[in-house]
């Protein structure tokens, strides 16, 4: 299981399995250039894998006024 925190909403989501960042974003209906994926204060590129038990943060990058 992996845990995802969304910024700035502060909401959390758990996914049963880890996987490649690109696939995780796809499950969330996001593309790699519309969200920052952060782990341990580093940005992750879409080819990297998130293992079970890890936590990531997702920041949507779109300005909305």
């Amino acid at each position: 299981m992996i845990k995802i925190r969304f910024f700035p909403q502060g909401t959390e989501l758990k996914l049963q399995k880890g996987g490649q960042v690109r696939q995780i974003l796809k499950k969330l209906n996001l593309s790699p250039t519309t969200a920052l994926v952060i782990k341990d204060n580093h940005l992750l590129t879409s080819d990297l894998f998130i293992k079970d038990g890890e936590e990531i943060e997702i920041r949507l990058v779109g300005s909305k006024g």
Partner: protein
Amino acid sequence: MKCKRCGQQAQVELPSHNAAFCKDCFFVFFQRQVEKAIKKWQMFKPDERILVAVSGGKDSLALWDILLKLGYKVSGLYVDLKIGDFSEKAREKAKKFAQQRQLPLIILDLAEEGIAIPWVVKYSRKKPCSVCGQIKRYYFNHIAYKNKFHVLATGHNLDDETSRLLANILRWQMPYLIEQSPVLPSIYGFAKKVKPLYRLGEYETAAYAFLRGIDYFASSCPYSQRATFLRYKQYMNQLELEFPGTKLNFYEGFLKKFRPLFQSLQKKENQVLHLCPKCGYPTLAPICNICHLKSEIKDKVI
């Protein structure tokens, strides 16, 4: 994924440039994009005083940060729209950024001006995003003029510019198309307006702000939920996903190939402005839109 410049583990992936960068090399890339924009459009000189319009969000704070890094003399301007909690939190982020770096920040309170956005939305029939943009431009111009700034810089990015261009083209909004540019020259003594981030997308500005440790405000304006510009951004994102580089090609292509044609139209369609008798702002109407709006809501606000 490895950094294109140094081969280290990359942190920022940019399909539009067919590249990925580590933190340090991304800073080099970001800086070069801004320098290229400034040089190509002769935005400002090292000795000119620049006022950056800051919202507390990632784009304007990233812009302030990079211009300081490049050695320019930059002050900030925060226009407090008085949209409740949204404006208070945004204002705190702008103030915190300025205080931490000991930078000058001018704060203008729209309630004190008698034209807070919630009042305008409630008592006039104007669309919130449109009238808010108009009010902000008015005060950006006035504050820059009053404080003798040469240049007013805004954090508009490639996503802002391409979504606006798409909207303007779909409706053939000729006056807006004529004016769409990374630089608007100084008129009537008002500061020149520039957009140094126009070559960088929202992903790049967000990545820059995060990697620079900038604490920015990221919530949406409560009035923008149904704004059409968000739909245009979504359409552009879909195109960009399928054809990386579309946004930059679309905008740079417009600037290179179409803008010169529009410029010749501008000369023919130029209308004569005069100065508003109440505030001195250039206008085509007997009094400017903002003075008209102020008088329209004045008696209704308790």
